């Protein structure tokens, strides 16, 4: 195990890594920007080093500053947390060249899985289902009709240079495909100066289901079950849970095996996540690999009893996994709510500032991961997460009841938070029955909900 580790992050995840290190007897060096000088978690580090001003580019994203801190503090390894430099292959390479262990997969793995097309090819080679699509671009109407015949409807026409929904058309049959094909090309040409388009099956009402994996440097990989992250708003996850209410035990085994195959194909070691879309017919499609620890790793910790951050440190230091898939048993049901300093009434604008009062809930089944406290001032420079509220109960219904109880107890005075929205989501019948999909939040609670939500 490492003697001394630098934590190249801030807030909740910096605190989380420091906690894991303390429990393993590993010394910690916390770096911080001037905006975070008052943070309480810094007191738990063995050494703290100010690396720059509030702006991330000059502090938490400043590779020379961080490496320099690592060198003067004489650490053996760097934990990047999530966000900032966590999936920066160049940073991982610099660490390597400085003989500092980057706590995460190899730079080559980070680069490979970070490249959409390469990751897709890797998945296909590993027999992991991907969203069916044209083999490259589709240049004419006839070609589009032929490909659609192979893939099936509904199908999506997507601009190769696209983004933000432009140059994108969904077609449910041949006539709408022909129209959509020409419309998408024209829009793509106008918007991006490039009319190249390709076709992909349109996955309707999907769920977002991801599998946590752990691998060692010997190539042994296990999965820790899945997390269902279908409660999203504009691709920002709000609520995560494990196990997913949408998976049968058989499908869980199958999805887990696919994730392990994908990880092995990418020579993945350390902790990572393989993300899938799951459609209402239980077909699943690989989307991407997250080559880092994720915010929602904690729900997996609750149901498996495995401390994923401690495992990251252990595996990065070269230890073998030491257990097989059989040793992983899921127990009970865990839910995580992200408590953000955002104003749901103002389109989720960040609502930073002083926490005049902060009393987290507690008691049975409740876990709180937060770096905040009464009197703490949330800096406006970084993300708006106040903390993660987690519950772990024998079953999903019990977990929902405990979460509602805990949300009701949570006292946060000062900034506006997402708590009222979370409360409404947890009370919604679609969530209660577990039949929601990734469109749920926008459908019922968006700025222009397609179906009016319950009274607020």
């Amino acid at each position, binding site marked *: 195990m490492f003697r001394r580790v630098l934590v190249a992050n801030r807030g909740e995840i910096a605190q989380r890594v420091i906690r894991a290190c303390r429990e393993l007897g590993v010394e910690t060096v916390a770096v*911080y920007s001037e905006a975070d000088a008052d943070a309480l978690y810094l007191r738990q580090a063995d050494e703290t*080093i100010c690396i720059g001003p509030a702006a991330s580019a000059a502090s938490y994203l400043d590779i020379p*500053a961080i490496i320099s*801190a690592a060198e003067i503090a004489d650490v053996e390894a760097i934990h990047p947390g999530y966000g900032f430099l966590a999936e920066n292959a160049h940073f991982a390479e610099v660490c390597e060249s400085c003989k500092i262990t980057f706590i995460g997969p190899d730079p080559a793995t980070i680069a490979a899985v970070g490249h959409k097309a390469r990751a897709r090819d890797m998945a296909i080679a590993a027999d992991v289902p991907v969203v069916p699509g044209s083999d490259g671009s589709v240049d004419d109407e006839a070609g589009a009709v032929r490909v659609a015949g192979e893939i099936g409807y509904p199908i999506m026409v997507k601009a190769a240079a696209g983004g933000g929904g432009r140059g994108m058309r969904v077609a449910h049959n041949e006539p709408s495909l022909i129209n959509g094909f020409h419309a998408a090309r024209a829009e793509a040409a106008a918007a991006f100066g490039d009319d190249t388009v390709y076709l992909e099956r349109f996955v309707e009402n999907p769920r977002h289901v991801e599998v946590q994996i752990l691998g060692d440097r010997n190539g042994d990989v296990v999965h820790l079950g899945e997390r269902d992250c279908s409660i999203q708003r504009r691709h920002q996850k709000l609520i995560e849970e494990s196990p997913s209410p949408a998976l049968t035990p058989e499908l869980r085994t199958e999805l887990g095996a696919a994730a392990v195959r994908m990880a092995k194909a990418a020579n993945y070691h350390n902790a990572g996540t393989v993300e899938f879309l799951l459609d209402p017919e239980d077909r699943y499609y690989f989307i991407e690999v997250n080559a880092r620890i994720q915010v929602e790793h904690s729900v997996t910790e609750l149901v498996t009893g495995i401390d994923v951050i401690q495992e990251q440190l252990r595996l990065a230091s070269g230890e073998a996994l030491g257990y097989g898939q059989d040793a992983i048993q899921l127990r009970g049901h865990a839910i995580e709510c992200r408590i953000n300093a955002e104003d749901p009434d103002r389109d989720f604008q960040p609502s930073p500032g002083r926490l005049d009062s902060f009393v987290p809930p507690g008691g049975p089944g409740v876990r709180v991961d937060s770096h905040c406290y009464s009197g703490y001032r949330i800096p406006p420079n970084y993300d708006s997460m106040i903390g993660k509220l987690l519950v772990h109960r024998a079953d999903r219904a019990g977990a929902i009841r405990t979460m509602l109880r805990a949300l009701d107890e949570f006292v946060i005075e000062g900034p506006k938070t997402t708590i009222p929205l979370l409360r409404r989501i947890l009370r919604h019948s679609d969530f209660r029955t577990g039949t929601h999909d990734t469109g749920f939040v926008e459908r019922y609670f968006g700025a222009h909900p397609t179906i009016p939500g319950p009274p607020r």
Partner: protein
Amino acid sequence: MDLKLLQKILRMMSRGDVRELEIDDTEAGLRIHVRRGPGEGEGQPAQPVVQWMGGPPAMPMAGAPAAAPAVAPSAAADGDVAGDDGELPPGVEEFPSPMVGTFYTSPSPDADEFVRAGDEFGEDTVLCIIEAMKVMNEIKAESIGEIVEVLVNNSEPVEFGQPLFLVKKR
């Protein structure tokens, strides 16, 4: 063990020219005993003795020699290394480090220091070098004035914002 606390204490001792300091804080489970410089008639080097029982540093200091500047217990004790401004004489200000790295007072081990206490400097005067990732960064004064004190010893690590010099600007 909170090295930042020790670092602050050592810096205060250095400024206050304190030779020996003992702290025994049973509340925080902390005992610190520091002697600076060669011991009189003992010839042994400075030997800090530190015992740390964990927990957030509470820092009520006992037994500090009268020469040491008083330290206010502060919740942000760790965070703010430039927080002693109140003690500076009028007109004197701190020159903070613009980066994390290793501080060098001279361009090479054998060369003279860039500046010493009492030296005057101009905008382009190099005050020190800070090494970060094997790169030697010359730190220029970017103002006109006089060095009152060099606060950091040669080849010591410094963090962003850490006071390197006390200066009097014109």
